[in-house]
């Protein structure tokens, strides 16, 4: 089984609380660019962008800096990453991110620490069959 952050756009009210929560936890800043989850405000609804752990990026990484842990979550090994961003371009749902001044790309690692910040339960940690 694979652990991932499932997203429910229809419940999202685009309050961005999850992004703030994530950026504070991992970077200790309020900069939404540092969040591993992104909320896109579209005309009719919000769209939540977070890694579904599909592993496409793992295949393209030239340094094997992207690995899959026992729970099926894709992790970035900062020691091996050379910041080429081939993973960002290859990501089919555009959930691998860069930020100003950063070198290592960031992505959701299904830690679940943002869940409490969401007032509508539009994000949930779930499990699915392996890809």
């Amino acid at each position, binding site marked *: 089984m694979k652990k991932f952050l499932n997203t429910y756009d229809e419940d999202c009210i685009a309050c961005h609380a999850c992004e703030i929560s994530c950026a504070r936890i991992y970077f200790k800043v309020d900069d939404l660019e540092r969040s591993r989850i992104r909320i896109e405000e579209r005309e009719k609804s919000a769209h939540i962008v977070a890694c579904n752990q599909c592993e496409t990026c793992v295949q393209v990484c030239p340094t094997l800096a992207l690995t899959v842990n026992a729970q099926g979550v894709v992790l970035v090994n900062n020691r091996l990453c*050379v910041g080429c961003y081939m993973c960002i371009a*290859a990501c089919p749902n555009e959930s691998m991110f860069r930020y100003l*001044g950063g070198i290592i790309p960031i992505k959701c690692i299904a830690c679940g620490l943002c869940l409490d910040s969401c007032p509508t339960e539009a994000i949930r940690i779930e499990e699915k069959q392996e890809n």
Partner: protein
Amino acid sequence: MTERKVLAEFPYELKPVEKGYNRRTLYINLSTKAIESRPVTDLMIDKFVGGKGFDLYLMWHSVKDTTRWNDPENEICIAFGPLCGNTNYPGSGKSIVTTISPLTDIPIDCNVGGHFGPYAKFSGWDAIEIQGKSEEEIIVFIDGDKGIVQILSAPDEEINSHILAERLIAEFADNPNGYQYVSVVSSGKAAEYVPISCLNFSFWDKRRKVARLKQAGRGGTGMVFRDKKIKALVVKYSGLKGDTNHPVDLETLQKTGLKLHKEIEEGDDKQNRMRQVGTAHLVEIMNDYDLLPIKNFKYGQMEEAKGLASWEFKKLFTQGLPDGCWFGCSLSCCKAVDNFIPRTGPYKGQKVTVDGPEYETVGGCGSNLCIWNARDVVELNFYCDTYGIDTISFGTSCAFAMECYEYGILNKERTGGLDLSWGNADSVFELIHQMGRGEGFGVIVGQGVHKMKEIFAREYGADPKLLQDIGMEAKGLEYSQYMSKESLAQQGGYTLALKGPQHDEAWLIFMDMVNNQIPTFEDKAEALHYFPMFRTWFGLQGLCKLPWNDIEPANNAETDEPAKVPEHVQNYIDIYTAITGRPLDKEELIRQSERVYNFQKVFCMRMGKGRRIDDIPPYRAVGPVTEEEYLSRKERYDKLLKEKQGIDPEGKSTQEKMALLRAYREDQYQQLVDAVYKRKGWTKEGIPTIEHLKSLGMDLPEVVEVVKRFL
């Protein structure tokens, strides 16, 4: 583990690269065992930029006018360029190798991938300059983690690259996890015997767990390397990060790289499929357009060529791996055949990983010899690489020998019993193994076409005029694998190329022959000015040419000048400024190249070539040499006689028509040369004028002194 003596050692201070430069070069003299750090001056950066520019500058000041390839003062220079080693923009890991060539007697330059260049640069050096000759076999080791350069004894028995590279990686890495931080430059056994030799630059493939090999292929670098008794250059550097090149504007660099990554992700499968088959996608296109060289460039198209089409190689290439030769190259063109089992030679029956074959290798080792079996081409590719042989010169040289065999100039008595009939792969394998052993007729073929012409005329009484017409070399270098007969512009692209007929200065066949975009002499001359200058720029910076136009923006066709790929030109300007902090526009980009290009031209003159007479192609590159060639395209040539020359072909013999066509085409070529020299700011004899050098800021005293000898 091999026992090694430290013959010389040079500790140096580790310092970060700043804005793409280290501002120092590494000088090694193998005769005296001196190792020195030398400063990079402002003049070097302002006038020569880096990469090939630095190589040529260093070589100029080290060789004499009379220096030949095996003189101790000849150098092997390897330089990297300010953009080299960035991990953001695809195709940014190139080294540029120069030396005085054993094939041409003038500077040769090769642009090669692999990890050596970036690691050597980040170890602290903008260029490596190796002079002198060692009396014993040596390895040069650059430890970029500790800041030490050593010359080590090399009693290793192994020479061939596919084994030597892996052994040295294992020896010099701290542990198996560190294999990826070591890169090796090596050649192979054949480079001790034949000048059509190359250097292999390794990169450790973490997925396949093998050393992959990229080639500095042209002009005989391997023979100079082995003549100096260098077994290998080894570099170790484990500190690579996404900003090790210390750009002034990382944000722009990252964004520009990411934009191209996405373009490749979206466009490559629809455009050239570089990630699936690499440059082998060209085989079927060239065959369709009558441009694939067959039987020593007699023909450009044959039904049998489908045996070498990209889909045949796709079956052999392992798919779905990030096959970039440097980190961050999402174009990933360097394909590999895993678990290949050669059917001949010393490694017969052993499983090996083979890099490529790329298009040029398919043309040279396949179609040009009428070898239509993809696996045979893979095997020739493997042995060329590991023996240190250039697949292009090998192909063109074998093709020449086979045509001489067809005409009876060669026979079994003269080839040591080898039947060199077209398509006889077994004989071609024997030739390559003879080159690897340094014996037999293979060593004659390995001297290259220029030397073979002399030998066959002298020893076998062959007609020198026929040999000149069918021997596909100019300046001593073999032509690479495209047919130029029907493209006047490409005849110039090949034959006017400074180092000899390689397609890396200009590839204009589609612009000229297919799309008719450059109909006049002036149009062709403009293209033969712009593209060689633009492409020279990659070698100054440490970049690969392929991500420029082997992937194009979706809207490229709608731009003013699609052949230039304007958006990608702007990308290069943006990343140059983002890394170096120096302003650049598209005009100054060309001028950067023009300075170095003209310097190289004068360097060639200084070494005894670079004259108009050196820019003459063999007629095989221009038109049909034999009746069978004329007759195979009779309709085309008859029509051209009528339309271009106003001559009615009716009633004329084939020989008469061939003579008329030849006179016309040779005259057209000379008119093209006039137009190109004029556009380049050169005299009718091909000498850069002092005024032109002044206008470029390249009227350096040492350059002017040489030019004055010719004016």
